[in-house]
């Protein structure tokens, strides 16, 4: 009998805690019964500054259009299972459209197909699905184009030197990584592979970028050009370069368009930063999501733009100055 009382007490505490959590979080938001369109917005992780920049824009846009935004994320970069569950829950919730940045381009497709089968539009943002036509619309930077710009710039910037290239990749197998790197290599020239002496993985993390660069420099002290998949990797590489006393002698190209990276270009720490526009992606994602939920047809592919920012302009390579970068950066 006593154990029953104990369990009842435990349950009471548990329920109180849950109710408390609910109250503190502001309670239930509007549900489908009120007639508002529900837009799901699923990002890779909650803490990545790229997505942190998107959130207020997505929420503001949804509020402006009178829709309810349900925001969720994976638990870690690469967490496919949580995103699958999130899409399934949004289907149950009768969402009008789902905006998703897939952690695993191929792994998210079963849930995407379940959604589109029920007539729910799915918009992939920033990262494509595999196959890319599983979604209704794809809103992103053209990562290949972005890489290409870096490649073109680097080729011109390296005129007169024999290039010794280090590649600091993100997460191998990721579409984003592959497109950016391939774009860079093709932009640099058809023969670029033979100049690559080091090809390391950073998972887009600054600490790993620094470690990778340190190892690369130890193995090949004559590296003079570093391609990095994103800003954190680039900033990590720059730290390693400086620690080896080679600041200014090694060109570092990168992309993302975050304010940290642009500042890095301004300070001469890195040489280029091809900008992405996540706020534009968020805004367009919600906009077109609502339109699709209203039954309108939306474009299948939207390129949100890629702009190379650098202090060292190269002939015939389109670029924008640092001032543009500072005005439009995120994070």
């Amino acid at each position, binding site marked *: 009998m006593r*154990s*029953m009382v*104990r*369990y*009842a007490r*435990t*349950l009471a*505490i*548990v*329920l109180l*805690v*849950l109710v408390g*959590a*609910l109250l*503190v*979080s502001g309670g*239930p*938001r*509007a*549900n*489908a*019964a009120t007639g508002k369109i529900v837009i799901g917005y699923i990002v890779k992780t*909650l803490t990545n500054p790229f997505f942190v920049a998107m959130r207020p824009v997505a929420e503001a846009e949804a509020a402006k259009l009178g829709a*309810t935004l*349900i*925001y*969720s*994320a994976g*638990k*870690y970069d*690469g*967490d*496919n*299972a949580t995103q*699958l*569950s*999130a899409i*399934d*829950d949004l289907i*149950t*919730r*009768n969402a009008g459209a789902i905006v998703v940045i897939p*952690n*695993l381009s*191929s*792994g998210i*497709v*079963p849930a995407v197909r379940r959604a589109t089968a029920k007539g729910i539009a799915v918009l992939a943002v920033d990262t494509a699905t*595999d196959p890319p036509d599983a979604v209704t619309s794809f809103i992103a930077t053209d990562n290949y184009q972005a890489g290409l710009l870096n490649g073109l710039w680097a080729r011109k910037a390296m005129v007169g030197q024999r290039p010794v290239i280090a590649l600091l990749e993100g*997460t*191998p*197998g990721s579409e984003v990584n592959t497109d950016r790197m391939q774009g860079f290599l093709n932009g640099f020239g058809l023969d670029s592979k033979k100049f690559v002496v080091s090809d390391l*993985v950073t998972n887009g993390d600054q600490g790993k970028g620094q470690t990778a660069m340190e190892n690369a420099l130890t193995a090949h002290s004559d590296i003079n050009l570093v391609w990095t998949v994103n800003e954190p990797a680039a900033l990590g590489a720059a730290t390693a370069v400086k620690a080896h006393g080679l600041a200014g002698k090694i060109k570092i190209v990168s992309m993302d368009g975050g304010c940290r990276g642009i500042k890095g270009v301004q300070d001469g720490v890195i040489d280029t930063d091809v900008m992405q526009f996540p706020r534009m992606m968020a805004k367009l994602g919600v906009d077109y999501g609502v339109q699709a939920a209203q039954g309108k047809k939306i474009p299948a592919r939207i390129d949100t733009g890629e702009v190379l920012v650098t202090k060292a302009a190269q002939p015939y390579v389109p670029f924008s100055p640092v001032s543009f970068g500072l005005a439009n950066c995120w994070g």
Partner: protein
Amino acid sequence: MSRPQAARGREALRGLRDRVSGASRFGGIPILGPLAGLVLLSAAFSVLSPVFLTPANFSQVFQQVMEVCTLAVGQTLIMLAAGIDLSNGGIMVFGSVVMAKMAVQGTPVPLAILIGLALTTALGLVNGFVVARVRLPPFIVTLGMLNIVYASTLLYTGEAAVQNLPPGLLFLGTTITLGHARVPVGPLVMIAVVMIVWYALTHTAWGRHVYVVGDNIEAARVAGINITRQLISIYTIAGFIYGIAALLVLGRTTVGDPQAGQTDNLDSITAVVIGGTSLFGGRGNVLGTLIGALIVGIIRNGLTLIGVDALWQTFATGVIVVVAAAVDQATRRRR
């Protein structure tokens, strides 16, 4: 051993056997707490969300928890024996990518599945061997194994997901029609695993020995149980169960993803603890684990359906784990 010592050992064992058989026979009163929690939570969410209490949603929740719940069944066995397994998610993923890659490269699907199951079972056996024979703490052993399998998985797959799997591998993600209902196969397998392990724990000598080893290893030794063999068998069977979880994951995601399941080890421990199994071994119930996994799944699902921010779901789960463990501690001290 002196006569008083032997007498004390027999006394302890008698008391132990009574407690264990009483607790384990019906699946025991202990699951009443988690079960009531599950019912009350479901009631609360069905009031707050019109779509919660629908067959489609429940089917959803079962599919969402089946991976962690199956891992948690293995975790239950190990925790009942006063151990812990941090490598279960990693072993599962390694098994899944091996099955996937072999099948894609042309191995017949049944053979690929068997090889994957053999691999996970063997890894479980290694864990058990190092714990029982080399006598290292399970925490350390399985932590080391976790890193070994994670690295092995990435090396084997070249860090890329294995795609375009033959449909034969994906059967646990399919749905069958039973009468009027469309029932997903995966959760049925999950429940079968739970029931088989429940039966083994409550109706076989081996199962009773699991409890005894976890509750009082000295008494178990005195009673003549071969501790080494018992522990190794527990970890090995758990390894096999992780192989089944690997098939579940392949069915649900349709890819062999080396980055999958990274938080599954802690999630499985959460399910086991909420289900009433003691962290210190010797008490607990695999039915409770199923309920614990469902509670976690329902909290996540219910809070999502009513629009509560994802982080509060994690917060609520964390609080409930602490509460459940505190209850365990309080009832333990009562004895």
